[in-house]
């Protein structure tokens, strides 16, 4: 890419892109989204119950 996009002058100091504003924006969005979240998790599983001791469960819980 650097071979294709070349500036027509050489800056005297090294230029670094400050991506902090993007980071803050993303952080803000994430915090705001947290408040939109549901009451509890939804788990995509074929069985509705776990740990009842019934034989038809997906798997058995740990003994510990």
């Amino acid at each position, binding site marked *: 890419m650097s071979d294709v996009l070349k500036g027509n002058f050489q800056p005297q100091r090294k230029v670094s892109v400050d991506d902090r504003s993007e980071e803050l924006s993303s952080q803000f969005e994430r915090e705001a*989204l947290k408040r*939109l*979240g*549901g009451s509890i*998790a939804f788990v995509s599983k074929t069985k*509705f119950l*776990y*740990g009842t001791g019934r034989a038809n469960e997906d798997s058995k819980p740990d003994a510990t």
Partner: protein
Amino acid sequence: MKTQSRMPPEPVQNRGSQGSKGTLGRRIASSLENITLEKVTQVGFANALMNAPLIASGKNISALQETFLMKREGALVIAAGPSIHRYDTAKLIKESGFKGIIVATESAMAWCLRHGITPDLVVTLDPHASRIVRWFGDPNLTEAMLARDDYFARQDMDPKFQEDQLRFNRELLELVDRYGSWIRIAVASSASPSVVDRIVKTRMQAYWWNPMYDDYDKEDSLTRKIHALNNLPCVNAGGNVGSACWVFAHAVLGKKRVGLVGMDFSYYADTPYAQTQYYKEILNLVGPDRLDNVFVRMMNPHLGLEFYTDPAYLWYRDAFLEMAQQAECETYNCTGGGILFGPGIRWATLSEFLSGAKA
């Protein structure tokens, strides 16, 4: 009270100006699973630890299978969506002679009791520290608390909670005190101390359970960890208490025919955005000009009416549809409104369901 709902023209305040309608809302909905898990895990687990002594000395939901609830055929789930107020729902239920069981969300309990309907089972799930107890009557509610949190003044689930809130809270305290001992309640281990205290003081019959937090087959699963802590059965609650009621009806109580009322997962078109569940959060997130990007509009083909929803409700709805296709029961949506339609859902009127007619 009307039996058919016709919506007035959509108010102009619900129309924003920029961007594709609902695009952002659909994107947010698809990312809510991980975000919600992050949000509820800490408080849910902390509440489970606090509730451990009561859980150890109490009953769990397996004991429900030794009650008369197992003997009845069919179940009606009553959730607190706005449609229950737009139809003569209570009258239809009471006059039907319905022989099945009634499973209600805690948010619909006040509506049930004041309409002379005592649910056979109430379900509570959400770990919120101060809001959920309001559905039971909050003995510590003050004017200052109402000033800090206007959630109940804005919500559309029960209009009674929008009135003189302190007065209504007093009335609800008396109502739940009076009927508490008659009510069986499936209490999630994630329930807040204020809710648990209210359940104990009103002598409700508590049956404990764990909500599933994650895939129990994964190593280091939090669900497995909580189960190891309290040995309670874990239930896939579908993200919200209404879905949890439906799961209880068919997966715990074995009902093969389950009807739903008040499961809107959406708002009527004449509901101002400001009265929606997450309005303030959405406003803070995108600002007033991009609200239409977040709220998603959907046409209900059974009614020919448009409803709108927010990312959280859309996520609940999608999760429900996924679960409905796996459930070993017939699910009849008798809500009469909203966006819960699709594979696994039979659309029916409440009268049809109550009379046993197939949709």
